[in-house]
């Protein structure tokens, strides 16, 4: 059993008291553990006089802070002496209570407003904040200057460190394809990634990658032109920045769960875009193809094959995120087919030689590295 003992002291004296300004009190001075028991009296000015046989103190009323209540007692602290602790009865004469600091329950702001009102105000402010946060990617994304996005993309992924396939003929063929679908003066950076998947991605900083698997299965260069145009569309319509912001927002929300930035970069690619964004990118692609007199039938053929392979809803294969988040392949195939001009004779976008050069690019590049972080 623990025991606490202190020097006993006796005290007896009597004096006239004005009961309306005086109560029994006990306090610790914050320097020793000895309890002082006596009474507290308001001096009529700005001070509370504490009087006990073991200690006399004058505490400025504006130095007192409300601490807490427990049962029949109220506790006060001092601003200037953090360890000081004064105990007064909860049932105080009003003359004295008026001069003591007010009780605080939830924290200064909420006490002032009242719990109900504060809860409503906080809830409204939170709803606005959440709405701003949720919609920020949509309205903020397109307003981020393209140069910023380019720098961001550079910082995040750079040049892929030799993992892109490159041969002089293949590069020339890709550049020619890009010229047809990206008329801007500052073109996107297009590259062929050494990955055996039927996929293509638009990454932050105007970086567009066609995967080697996509190129291998292509039956015509027009197919590639269609897919490339679609990805360029994502870059030009600022979908990448929007998706990046959305991904960033998610990682802030899930902070701690998984906030690696690397997941962010490719999360953008794998997460895909909204269906509206996909339609916008498709519209962009068809407009460029029409401008450059490239047949949209290649792209139509590609989507028809995809619809056959993965089902029309495009959701049966979650691995190829590109397809999963895209509008139904069959519907898209029709849209591309309808875009073809009746009876038009489109010139081939690439020569047979150029198409072959593009298809053998990864095989012929002697020092291309494996993409091991997908």
């Amino acid at each position, binding site marked *: 059993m623990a025991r*606490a003992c202190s*020097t006993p002291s006796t005290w007896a004296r009597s004096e006239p008291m004005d009961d309306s300004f005086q109560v029994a009190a006990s306090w610790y001075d914050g320097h020793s553990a000895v309890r002082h028991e006596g009474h507290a009296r308001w001096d009529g000015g700005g001070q509370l006089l504490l009087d006990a046989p073991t200690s006399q103190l004058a505490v400025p009323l504006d130095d007192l802070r409300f601490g807490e209540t427990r049962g029949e007692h109220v506790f006060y602290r001092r601003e200037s002496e953090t360890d000081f602790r004064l105990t007064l009865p909860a049932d105080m004469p009003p003359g004295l209570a008026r001069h003591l600091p007010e009780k605080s329950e939830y924290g200064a702001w909420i006490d002032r407003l009242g719990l109900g009102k504060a*809860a409503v105000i906080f809830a409204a402010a939170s709803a606005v904040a959440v709405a701003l946060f949720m919609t920020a990617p949509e309205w903020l994304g397109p307003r981020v200057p393209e140069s910023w996005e380019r720098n961001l993309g550079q910082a995040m992924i750079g040049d892929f460190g030799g993992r892109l396939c490159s041969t002089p003929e293949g590069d020339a063929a890709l550049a020619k394809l890009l010229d047809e679908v990206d008329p801007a003066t500052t073109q996107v950076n297009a590259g062929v990634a050494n990955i055996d998947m039927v996929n293509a991605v638009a990454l932050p900083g105007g970086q567009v990658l066609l995967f080697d698997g996509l190129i291998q299965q292509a039956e015509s260069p027009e197919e590639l032109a269609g897919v490339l145009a679609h990805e360029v569309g994502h870059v030009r319509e600022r979908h990448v920045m929007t998706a990046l912001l959305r991904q960033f927002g998610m990682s802030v929300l899930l902070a701690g769960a998984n906030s690696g930035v690397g997941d962010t970069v490719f999360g953008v690619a794998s997460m895909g875009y909204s269906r509206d964004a996909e339609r916008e990118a498709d519209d962009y692609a068809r407009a460029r193809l029409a401008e450059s007199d490239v047949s949209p039938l290649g792209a139509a053929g590609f989507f028809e094959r995809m619809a056959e392979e993965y089902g029309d809803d495009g959701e049966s294969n979650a691995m190829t995120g590109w397809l999963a988040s895209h509008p139904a392949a069959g519907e898209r195939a029709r849209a591309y087919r309808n875009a073809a001009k009746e009876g038009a004779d489109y010139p081939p976008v690439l020569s047979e030689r150029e198409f072959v050069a593009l298809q053998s690019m990864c095989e012929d590049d002697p020092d291309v590295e494996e993409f091991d972080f997908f």
Partner: protein
Amino acid sequence: MHGKYDGEGGESAFVFEGTWREFAPIAFTNLLLTIVTLGTYRFWATTRERQYLWSRSRFVDEHLEWAGTGKELFFGFMIVLVLFGLPYFIISFGAQALIARGYEEIGAALGVLAFVAIFYLMGVARFRALRYRLSRTRWRGIRGGSDDPGFVFGLSYMWKTIVGWLPLGLLIPWSMTSLWNERWNKMSFGPYRFEASAEAGGVFARFLLFYLAPFILFIGGLFMAAMGMLAGYGIGGEDGMALGGAFGIIGLILFFYLGLGLIAVAFYAKFYREVVGATRWKDLDFSFEASTLEWVKLLVGDALLVVFTLGIGLIFLSYRHWKFFITHLEASGEILLDELTQSTTRTARHGEGLLDAFDMGAI
């Protein structure tokens, strides 16, 4: 025994006087305010909760007082966010950028660096959280604390934890008790230091249960699965046997997790009895007398409370745990109040941000 607390079977030095009915309004308003402020209020919520729990905990003849504020907890959290969150973000960003550029080794090294830094900071955080809590706990106007910032403890935490795991985990009891001693020996309350001299020997036997368990559980589990299959066969032939087997396997998994959980509880029950029992403060000896069964009751009670209130019971867990802690904590000895003067340790202005960030308990 003499003085005020004389007598056989006298009351414990630590008494908890709270009731859940008093705690409920605090817990529910905290929940409401935390939700409408999207979690920002939780620092103030924590403070209100502790103020209540501390003020209803009596040590000998006076109640404890929690003197921490929500504001300092909030600032502690912000400081951690800026000092550690930001560099961590930049390092992991840099690591990923380097890997993307083909510098896998440097990128991986940066990643490892970030991991080591977190490991170190976890040790520092454990130390500082205890320091913060002692420095905000007052009894008769006296508080505790430590003048050690905990940076050395962070290093000890790293190497002792690693050494503990190395020989098939056999030194874990040693690393746990030794870290407990190191931490508490740096803490003080009022003018006196705590002294802790817990020994691994006292908990080692319990720890060995972890090694024995897999064998017992495996054999027991096989037996159960076989019984399940037989029972299933008896009821419905081949199909019944498959079904019975499936139930048996589910039983095996449950058995395994529950069994392992039970061993962990048994170990921790023993561990806390040992380490608290080996902790002293001046002429006071502490003890913590919660048996394994009492721990199991606490945890099963927690689970039932949460499940049957559809999760709302979560807000009462801190109350239950604190009550459990205070109820089973005991102290014997003598305190001379005249000699008990104020702690001279510095008090940090911010709260337990680091620990909060890692979401760990202080004790």
